[in-house]
């Protein structure tokens, strides 16, 4: 046991002595959280739009100012002819073009209908769809006010309530996601090279002839990083709460415990990678190039999982960050407790156990 303690202490020293890496490890997550927390939004606003208005009468001018007054749009150009629109999109000057028909007011007054054409740059389908919806809604609302009498007949009145996040802030969505992304990568990256480095620099033999058992070596390697990560996550959570005002509706203790579980999971995944690779380069390529995009895309961090094809929803079950995100959002934003989260917790615990057992087995094979 004292050999084990000595080993853990030695590992701690290793980490603490490398000031530069420590600085990187603490500085990076903080900068990332602050930067992304403020910068990443998926609301659509300030869309640049070109308005083509050959009529130029009082109705089209009223409609134009109505559109531009809304926070969604920002006019870039007002022209009277429709030539060269292809250029507008190809040079990325605007995402939408709104064309009024000639003699607009006249048509509206005499035929009771006037045509507006909306062209969107649909290379980004999501934005295209959203701005079309905004434009239609704004024009129709403006059109209603043009009418002499109130519109006749039926109305189904939707009473909408936005649960958990009534002001629709994207910070609520992204901050927990960033916590998951940062922890996953920092943790996996830290441990993924611990054993390969010993292999590469030739110190592995020393470890192998020591009286330490494979399990002890692995736990000894993980422990210091566990403390380090816990410190990192505390800083992140405090920032989330104070700087971004993300609520903490559930239990803080539970949140910290779940973070600890996820850290353990990521660290043991790193260790598993470490036992399976021979060079630091390979280990880091796997943990970086292999984990970065799946964690961003398949965890529900940015893209809603519900809309993915069923097969990919299946794949997303294998991404630890997906479960952690459900847990963090559940605790922080919905204020739920263990009663609702035990399944996710169990799955994360199962993954952690699997990674640890697999690492120990891989490792002992190499001992022979």
């Amino acid at each position, binding site marked *: 046991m004292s050999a084990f303690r000595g080993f853990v202490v030695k590992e701690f020293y290793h980490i603490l002595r490398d000031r*530069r890496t420590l600085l990187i490890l603490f500085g*990076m997550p903080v*900068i990332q959280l602050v930067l992304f927390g*403020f*910068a*990443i*939004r998926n*609301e659509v606003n300030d*869309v640049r739009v070109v308005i083509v208005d050959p009529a130029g009468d009082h109705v089209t001018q009223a409609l134009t100012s109505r559109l531009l007054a809304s926070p969604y749009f920002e006019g870039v150009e007002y022209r009277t002819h429709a030539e060269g629109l292809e250029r507008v*999109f*190809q*040079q990325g000057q605007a995402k939408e073009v709104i064309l009024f028909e000639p003699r607009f007011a006249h048509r*509206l*007054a005499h*035929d*009771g*209908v006037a*045509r507006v054409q909306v062209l*969107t740059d*649909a*290379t*980004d*389908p*999501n934005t295209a*769809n*959203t701005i*079309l919806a905004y434009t239609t809604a704004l*024009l129709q609302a403006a059109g209603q006010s043009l*009418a002499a009498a109130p519109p006749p*007949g039926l*109305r*189904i*009145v*939707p009473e*909408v309530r936005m649960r*958990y*996040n009534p002001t*629709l*802030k994207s910070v*609520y*969505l992204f901050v927990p996601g960033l916590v998951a992304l940062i922890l996953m990568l*920092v943790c996996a990256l830290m441990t993924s090279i611990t054993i390969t480095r010993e292999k590469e620099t030739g110190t592995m033999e020393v470890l192998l002839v020591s009286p330490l058992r494979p399990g002890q070596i692995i736990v000894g390697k993980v422990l210091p990083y566990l403390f380090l990560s816990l410190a990192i996550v505390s800083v992140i959570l405090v920032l989330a709460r104070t700087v971004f005002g993300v609520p903490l509706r559930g239990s803080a203790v539970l949140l910290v415990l779940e973070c600890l579980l996820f850290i353990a999971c990521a660290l043991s995944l790193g260790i598993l990678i470490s036992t399976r690779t021979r*060079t630091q*380069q*390979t280990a*880091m*390529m*796997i943990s*970086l*190039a292999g984990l*970065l*995009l*799946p964690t*961003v895309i*398949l965890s529900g961090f940015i*893209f809603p999982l*519900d809309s*993915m094809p069923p097969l990919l929803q299946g*794949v997303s079950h294998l991404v630890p960050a997906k479960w952690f995100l459900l847990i963090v959002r559940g605790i922080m934003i919905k204020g739920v407790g263990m009663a*609702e989260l035990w399944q996710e917790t169990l799955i994360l615990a199962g993954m952690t156990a699997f990674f640890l057992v697999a690492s120990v087995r891989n490792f002992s094979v190499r001992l022979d």
Partner: protein
Amino acid sequence: MRTILFILQKEFLQIFRNRAMLPILFVMPIIQLLVLSLAATFEVKNTPVSLIDLDGSPTARRLVARFEASGYFTVVHRTYDPAAADEAMQRGDVRMILQIPAGFERDLRRDGAAPVQLILDAQDGATAGVVQAYANRILGDYTRDLQVTFAATPPDPRAHPVLDVVFSHWYNPELNYHYFMVPGILVLLVTMIGTFLSAMNVVREKELGTIEQLNVTPLRKRDFIVGKLLPFWILALVELSAGLVVARLVFHVPMLGNLALVYALTGVYLVGMLGLGLWISTFTETQQQAMFLAWFLMVVFILMSGLFTPIESMPGWAQKLTLLNPIAYFIEIMRRVLLKGAGFADVQPQFWALVAFAVTSVTLAVRQYRKVST
């Protein structure tokens, strides 16, 4: 020239001798391109709904059928107890609760107006907004149809002038999300492989002690840098080609622009990114530090590139920061050239930004390397 060829040969041998690296370089990116492009969509489909239909009238039932037929909603949970619906939302089983009050049909016939309640899980605010827009559209369409059945006389069009909004979605009329994401994700894969590899390269020689051997050779600095960058440059272009084939054959991404232009621009872009990797490599002490820094920059570049969330949505200062982001330029270029058929003239500002970036990063790397070797 011959020295460069020798270094090239040595570097390639080094890359390919490491068997574990081959699948990482060639298989992993392609699999990621396939899987992640399918996953990366903001499209909102099949939102799971809990239905509380307290009316049960044919009008209410037809409304629910409208919701289901739209493809945007799937009723997964039916109850008469609002508390049960609440619980389902807490558990995360449903994202919307649709409550139709008792007397819905009667009120509609008698008063011409009746409420329905929509309760949305708004943790993801943007998606909730889209879901609400869909729900409103369905309600609006349904109301118009009911008008015909319920009302006696059609309204006079001239008393209620309408704006007839017609639309067309250019470049991507079916709003296929893959067209948008595949070029972007391809950029990332090419970038990551190249930058990570070059970031680890020199520092690896430092860590293993082989850098001294290189320093005592009569190798010129310029040849050294070229020899270090060229293999990754070639590798990344091979990756790009493989990715383009996948994009074309699997995702049917339109490629309207000139492919030669795509390659030329990628070539310039890669010089910049590889130079950046090399620069990191020259001032770090361990491969671990180099990787962390490369990862840090990469995540910042990716998340602020407009790949996943539009740059226009960012606050002003963040939009200015993206002017320093090479990935943002390159993604813009790829999307414009491939999807819109833009020519060189259209992407000139982006091109010059990439040139400036390449010159800066290579200069930094060369200068920093000199300091290390003396």
